[in-house]
């Protein structure tokens, strides 16, 4: 502590603008805290176990097996990311307020928006991390399956006619294209956009409620209503008031492209782009709303 540090700088000219660095410091801290709490490791473990189990399903034809594995793994990843998005975000703000850790942070030159954004980004980092872990295992499962099938195929054609060899080679190639399926990437991207959106909904709810149960149940309900929105609109589309109420809920059904992929359809990238844009735009609006509530709130 030097004397020069005390010499009063003229404070009127100093400024504290928005700082992405501070946001990232808070985000990394949030991630560290979440990882060390180990609760999410549990969710992640459950997901990983399910994905790993998929290796052992060996009935049906090769094509059916591949379809089954993809179906299961995408389903598991979708469920686990949704869970982590909701549970991981629900307690972020309430626990900061309850433990009063927020006091020491906001007593530093930190803007409330930076704090909120940092917390949210930390939650997204956690999502990305767990999704990456599940994807790596998913890829490993696919690879193991692929190798197994190829070995089986080549063995069954040993000693057969050259025509049969050509046939086997064709099948192997088909398996290889099945494994290197871009459609899977599309489904995962849509899934990430969905999880981000549901996390933002949870963040918004947690800015005005301190109850953990409420903060988990409400986003979950919003999610369910959002999933059924498309179907409901088809059934009762005539009622204008009903449609207006529905419009408040994000259309989560939009993100479920895994079903289409499993039916063997090719989803164009343009459509994925639209979905992601929709998700990001909605997320931004909701984060701004969360900021408006949070900045006025007594802590």
């Amino acid at each position, binding site marked *: *502590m030097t*004397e020069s*540090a*005390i010499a*009063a700088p003229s*404070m*009127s000219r*100093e*400024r*504290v603008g928005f*700082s992405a*660095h*501070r946001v990232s*410091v*808070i985000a990394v*801290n949030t991630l*560290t*805290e979440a990882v*060390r*709490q180990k609760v999410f490791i549990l969710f992640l473990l459950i997901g990983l176990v399910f994905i790993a189990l998929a290796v052992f399903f060996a009935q049906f034809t090769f094509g059916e097996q591949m379809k089954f594995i993809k179906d299961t793994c995408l389903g598991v990843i979708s469920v686990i990311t949704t869970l982590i998005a909701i549970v991981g975000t629900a307690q972020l703000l309430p626990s900061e307020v309850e*433990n*009063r*850790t927020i*006091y*020491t*942070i*906001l*007593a*530093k*030159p*930190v*803007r409330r928006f930076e704090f909120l954004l940092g917390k949210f980004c930390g939650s997204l980092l956690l999502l990305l991390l767990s999704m990456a872990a599940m994807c790596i295992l998913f890829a490993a499962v696919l690879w193991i399956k692929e190798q197994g099938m190829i070995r089986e195929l080549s063995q069954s054609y040993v000693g057969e006619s050259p025509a049969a060899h050509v046939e086997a080679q064709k099948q192997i190639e088909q398996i290889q294209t099945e494994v290197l399926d871009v459609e899977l990437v599309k489904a995962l991207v849509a899934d990430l956009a969905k999880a981000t959106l549901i996390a933002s909904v949870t963040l918004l709810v947690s800015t005005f409620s301190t109850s953990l149960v409420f903060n988990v149940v409400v986003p979950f309900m919003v999610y369910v209503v959002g999933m059924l929105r498309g179907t409901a609109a088809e059934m009762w589309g005539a009622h204008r008031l009903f449609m207006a109420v529905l419009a408040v809920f994000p259309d989560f059904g939009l993100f479920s492209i895994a079903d289409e992929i499993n039916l063997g359809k090719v989803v164009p990238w343009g459509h994925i782009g639209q979905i992601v844009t929709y998700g990001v735009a909605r997320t931004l609006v909701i984060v701004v709303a969360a900021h408006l509530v949070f900045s006025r709130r*007594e*802590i």
Partner: protein
Amino acid sequence: MDAIRTEQLTKKYDLGWRKGKLLALEKLNLRVREGEVYGLLGPNGSGKSTTLKLVLDLVVPTEGSAWIFDVPCSKVVSRLHVGFLPENPYFYRYLTGAETLEFYGKLCGMRGATLKKRIEELLDLVGLTRARHRRLAGYSKGMLQRIGLAQALIHDPKLLLLDEPTAGVDPIGSKDIRDLILRLKGMGKTVLLSSHLLAQVQDICDRIGVLNRGQMILEGDVQTLISDQRRLSITVQDLPEAARARVEEAVRATGASIVSVGHPQTTLEALFLEALRKDQRREGEHD
């Protein structure tokens, strides 16, 4: 320029639907001059913590306003040179002591070797060097208080707001903290602290203000407030019994009256500190 200035600062807490409001602080006009140690005293619930939170913009005033170095408290810039130790501080349980300081240092825009060096300095200053790699979940109350103090000092602020800085700390630690506050004052820092341990405040504060039910009921310079100008006490050592009678007589001869004669008692705190000082095993182990 005042380090802190408040005008008609008032806070009414909303107690929720149909429960009305609670007046926690009423029209406070506080001035903390640059370079002084100001003690905010008062019973539980008198509004001390509320005052500190208002100054830091952690709660929004119902009326009135406050300034830190003439910058309105509602602006983020006002907190650039402020360190805050909340009451019963609580930090991220899963971070270690060193990581905690690193986190707060980065929030203040510090980084690299400067930050590293500063963390070492502060851990040493608050006596937590040996506990630096332990997670805060395993820290005792007094250790949390110390890491809280280190966190408040991390960016070498000009103004310190300390809410009951010695709460939960053992007498040695408490003495250390008071010495530290005096050292900070020596460096030209301004300190605003709240406490209800009057004896401790007396030694370190230049000025005090007493709050009761949200109102300032007494304020002033500590020395003038507590010194009784009409009385004088002389402490002598090894005075023979015969001489004592003569001294008393001499006093009476001047027309003054003797209020009390007796053996001064040492304070329990002094006794405690002395005993610990003698017990060499305790040296440097209180982290």
